[in-house]
């Protein structure tokens, strides 16, 4: 009597047990498969249980969001009031107060440009000019001097605009220099080759801090008395020289990955060196090395915070200065969390940009 039952159920679909599908299934498969993962999961849950509630209590429940006049805030919670009270100085530093809209506009233009570049169909003949115009407009907004905008000297550029300026021009300057160095290192001309090797190894052999120190402490002593170069420019050049050496090595890796046949094909077509590189080798090589290049650019962006040690008021320094005011001295955690979020947003934009670029260019051969 039982046979017909089995035949009918065979025609129906047998559903897997509830514990193997949906949320439960996923949990079972990913978090509790085997003793090792189970232990890890339980451990993680325990740590979260220990850490999260106090953090939420500190950051949200006990937090103080605005300040009553005169009193120094106390209590156990986070004092987020340190951010709104000082946000203008942290973000824009010495930029004159009435002119704050100018760096804001410049930053918005930069983000618009990045957003515009995300779509590869925009990479046509207008691409270069649009960036050039964008950077020019940003420069005019920041420096002023025309259209009735009062001049704001570079020494007053500080906070977020300074961080962005140092990184943007650091990248723009370092990338071509790095490519040239990579080509130079693979050159058959011994003089150029050894120059590039020495340069790359020398720069990679010292930390960025020492380069910045040299640019700010030693370099001025070599100049005749009275001759000075803008402090920001000196740091900018140090950052460019440093980043370029790293980019050079990454690009060299890309160049080596190109099969010899490609070079020979170019030669058999009678292409001279410049055209071979421009039309055949570099487009392929640079495409391969997009992920490590973006990695270097992101770390270059974060490295700009090292200019703190030569007293340039980048984002980190303006925060530190705010925190050395007795009124705000105890609230470093809150301020640094704010900074971390800001840095994270910028770095995330960059890395998501690179992922999109990779996908569009089909680098995974």
């Amino acid at each position, binding site marked *: 009597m039982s046979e017909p039952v089995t035949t009918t159920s065979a025609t129906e679909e047998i559903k897997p047990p509830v514990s193997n599908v949906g949320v439960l299934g996923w949990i079972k498969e990913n978090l509790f498969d085997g003793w090792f993962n189970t232990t890890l999961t339980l451990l993680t849950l325990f740590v979260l249980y220990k850490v999260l509630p106090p953090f939420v209590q500190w950051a949200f429940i006990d937090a103080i969001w605005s300040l009553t006049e005169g009193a120094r805030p*106390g209590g156990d919670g986070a004092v987020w009031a340190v951010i709104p*009270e*000082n946000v*203008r*100085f942290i973000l*824009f*530093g*010495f*930029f*004159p*107060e009435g002119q704050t809209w100018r760096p804001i506009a410049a930053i918005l233009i930069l983000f618009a440009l990045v957003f515009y570049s995300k779509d590869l169909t925009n990479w046509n003949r207008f691409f270069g000019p649009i960036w050039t115009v964008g950077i020019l407009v940003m420069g005019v907004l920041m420096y002023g001097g025309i259209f009735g905008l009062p001049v704001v000297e570079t*020494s007053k550029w*500080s906070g977020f605009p300074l961080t962005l300026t140092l990184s943007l021009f650091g990248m723009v300057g370092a990338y071509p220099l790095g490519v040239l160095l990579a080509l130079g290192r693979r050159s058959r001309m011994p003089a*150029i080759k050894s120059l590039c090797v020495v340069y790359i190894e020398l720069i990679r052999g010292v930390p960025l801090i020492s380069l910045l*120190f040299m640019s*700010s*402490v*030693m370099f*001025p*002593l070599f*100049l005749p*008395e*009275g*001759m*000075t*170069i*803008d*402090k920001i420019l000196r740091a900018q050049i140090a950052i460019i020289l440093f980043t370029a050496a790293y980019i050079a090595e990454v690009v060299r890796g890309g160049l080596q990955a190109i099969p010899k046949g490609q070079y020979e094909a170019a030669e058999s077509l009678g292409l001279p060196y410049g055209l071979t590189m421009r039309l055949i080798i570099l487009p392929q090589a640079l495409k391969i090395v997009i992920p490590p290049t973006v990695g270097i650019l992101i770390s270059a962006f974060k490295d700009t915070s090292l200019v703190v*040690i*030569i*007293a340039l*008021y980048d984002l980190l320094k303006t925060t*530190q*200065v*705010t*925190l*050395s*005011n*007795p*009124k705000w*001295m*105890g609230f*470093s955690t809150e301020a640094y969390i704010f900074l971390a979020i800001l840095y994270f947003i910028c770095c995330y934009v960059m890395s998501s940009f690179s992922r999109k670029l990779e996908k569009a260019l089909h680098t995974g051969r």
Partner: protein
Amino acid sequence: MKQRKLIALVLSIFLFLPCLAFAGKDLDAVRKKGFIQVGVNGGVFGFGMPDEKGVWKGLDVDTGRAVAAAVFGDANAIKFTPLTAVQRFTALQSGEIDLLARNATRTLSRDTQLGLNFVTTNYYDGQGFLIPKALGVKSAKDLSGATVCVLPGTTTEQNAADFFRSNNMEWSPVVIESTSELAKTFFAGRCDVLTSDISQLAGTRATAPNPKNYVIMPEVISKEPLSPAVRHGDDQWKDIVDFSVLAMIAAEEMGITSKNIDTMLKSKDPKIQRFLGVTPGNGKALGLDEKWAYNIIKQVGNYGEVFERNVGPKTALGLERGLNALWTNGGLMYAPPFK
């Protein structure tokens, strides 16, 4: 060929870049520029630090403003270069700044070997100890066996070591890199004593959960005369900076403040008349406008006013005048005759 041209181009850019700014003798250069470039600390409340609006505030900052007022008749003809401890003397030697007012201690070796000229001290500081009242210690000599919070690598650490050794006392230093972390550690009770310059201790105490529970010990274990400096080579410029600082002290001695200065102009006292340039002479001697001292006091204030505004009892630092009182009040501030 192309490459060689490119290299030549790049090299020439690097060679000519430095020529963008040139300076000659210091005073002439300053006059030509139309402003004074002053090196300041940039991160020490009460001495040199921008406020929330990005406006520079502090005792050293006001010293720079006084020099600007003396030279240009405008206390705002000034630009600030924030400098770290490592950079400060190089910046002055290389001509990046015209005047260093960055709480630098005057020492023999700095004055001679570094090619600097320190002028009149604008703040007499010294290293001291901050302790919780609950510790019940009356004198630093009773601190044997104490754990001491201290910044690494500064003269502060060395002074403390010298102090404990010379008094045959045991101590265990707790060395922490950043000032704010150091304060946090101290207030959390990880060490018994915090040692630093007294002006800094006062600022740190202000950030305590309950400042009244902490006291600064009476002992001062080092001398730190914080003085502005100029580089060797232009004595007239040095005189101007020196007497700009002294003018603020002299004004306080004579009871001239930024508020009463215009009535003081009518004073019959020949000392005051000479000082304010009603009777000419001082300005010409320094190569300045006869109103130079008037401009300093009118725009910046006398030393007492500057002190009260930046570090005095009503500020977060809450420092007493102490050594920085006028000599008539038991301090060290003393100005030579202005004639």
